[in-house]
């Protein structure tokens, strides 16, 4: 393998962050401080891009992780499911500063996957009849009521992995996997923060969770 293809996706973090534009829908992986791209999120608080819609499981803690993005005034809207760990979200929402679209965690995850694999939406029993049903289409299948959850696409996905090879194949670590493989499929542009980059061929093909076809940019943690 020649040097050009080896380093094709590896970029300095500044260059990667310049790819994020005003008004973008930005997906960010992680679940409660595990599996979130901490370095990319910190860099995002410092870029010029604003009016972002952040699509994530949670929003970290007050002024920590993604929480700092809210403090920095970068967020226009949130799509996610669990903001109880960061009461700043309820405050900003109640003050009319941001919009919040709550989607049950399983429907949220599947909606992200759907966006990544060319599925427009799917029917689920989750949230039927509840306040989160909203104006979603209702349909009966085999005598049971389902609602239509649309796919949840994004302009950019910021994800985190344990190891990448030089092609961009990714493997994860324990419960830090969570939303990463899904968001890797769903973002039009996928930027992966990784702890380690290994030579092509050194990852066991059976162990690769995210094949490199989904990954556009790799940023090495600590660089």
């Amino acid at each position: 393998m020649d040097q050009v293809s080896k380093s094709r996706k590896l970029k300095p973090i500044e260059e990667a962050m310049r790819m994020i534009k005003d008004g973008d829908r930005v997906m960010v992986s992680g679940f409660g401080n595990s599996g979130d791209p901490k370095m990319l999120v910190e860099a995002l608080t410092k870029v010029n891009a604003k009016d972002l819609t952040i699509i994530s499981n949670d929003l970290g803690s007050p002024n920590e992780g993604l929480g700092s993005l809210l403090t920095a005034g970068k967020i226009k809207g949130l799509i996610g499911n669990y903001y109880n760990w960061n009461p700043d979200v309820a405050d900003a929402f109640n003050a009319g500063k941001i919009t919040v679209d709550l989607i049950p965690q399983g429907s949220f995850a599947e909606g992200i996957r759907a966006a990544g694999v060319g599925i427009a939406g799917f029917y689920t029993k989750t949230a039927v009849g509840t306040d989160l049903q909203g104006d979603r289409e209702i349909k009966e299948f085999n005598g049971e009521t389902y609602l239509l959850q649309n796919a949840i696409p994004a302009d950019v996905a910021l994800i985190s992995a344990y190891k990448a090879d030089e092609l961009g194949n990714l493997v994860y670590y324990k419960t830090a996997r969570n939303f990463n493989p899904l968001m890797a499929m769903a973002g039009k542009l996928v930027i992966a923060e990784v702890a380690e980059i290994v030579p092509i061929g050194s990852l066991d093909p059976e162990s690769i969770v995210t094949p490199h076809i989904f990954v556009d940019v790799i940023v090495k943690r600590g660089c």
Partner: protein
Amino acid sequence: MYQYDEETAKARIAGRIAKEFSEMSKEKDLFVNLGVGIPTMVADHIDSKRVFLQAENGMLGVGPAACEGECDPLLINAGRIKVTETPGCSYFDSCMSFGMIRGGHVDATVIGAFEADQEGNVANWIIPGGKMLGVGGAMDLVAGARRVYIAMQHLSKKGKPKILKKCTLPITGYEKIHAIVTEYAVFRFINKNMYLEEICPNMTLNDLKEITPAEYIVSEKLINF
């Protein structure tokens, strides 16, 4: 009316549910998802090796909370508690995790609740106007798990009944409850009817009725627990 101190009350609830799971696991391996609070304590009371805990953030075979020194900050359960592995555990993404739940592969979920009612409805995700804005996996779990156990103290912190004729707060899932376990009683839903199956030894049926607005049938096999 007899009152348990908070610690004893919670241990009674967790212990009663754990006993049921240990019993169920004699016939087949049991897969269980535990919510935060009292539900998490159920794990400490399970004495069977064939009850496997699932965490919706992507783990099957969740072990006990990690001790200081052996903590791995990236290995957490859905309540953000640092946990440990058990032999045979596995990791997966959030889609597969909720596939297990939505697909009916998880035998039981244990959740806390603000309110539950005689129709088997549960309200546990939001108090409108409050500081909390989140649903997490609650609706998916209630809709998908084969059995939904409510583990909660019988009365709210302010002493108000929580087992009602009809929930007043936004509903998490309709007609989904299998059983409600409090420090005073075990109620089970059979064919849409709510039965009182077990009562604590220090309480009369009238005592219980006074703190339980829901209408329920006293089981012919009522026992103490």
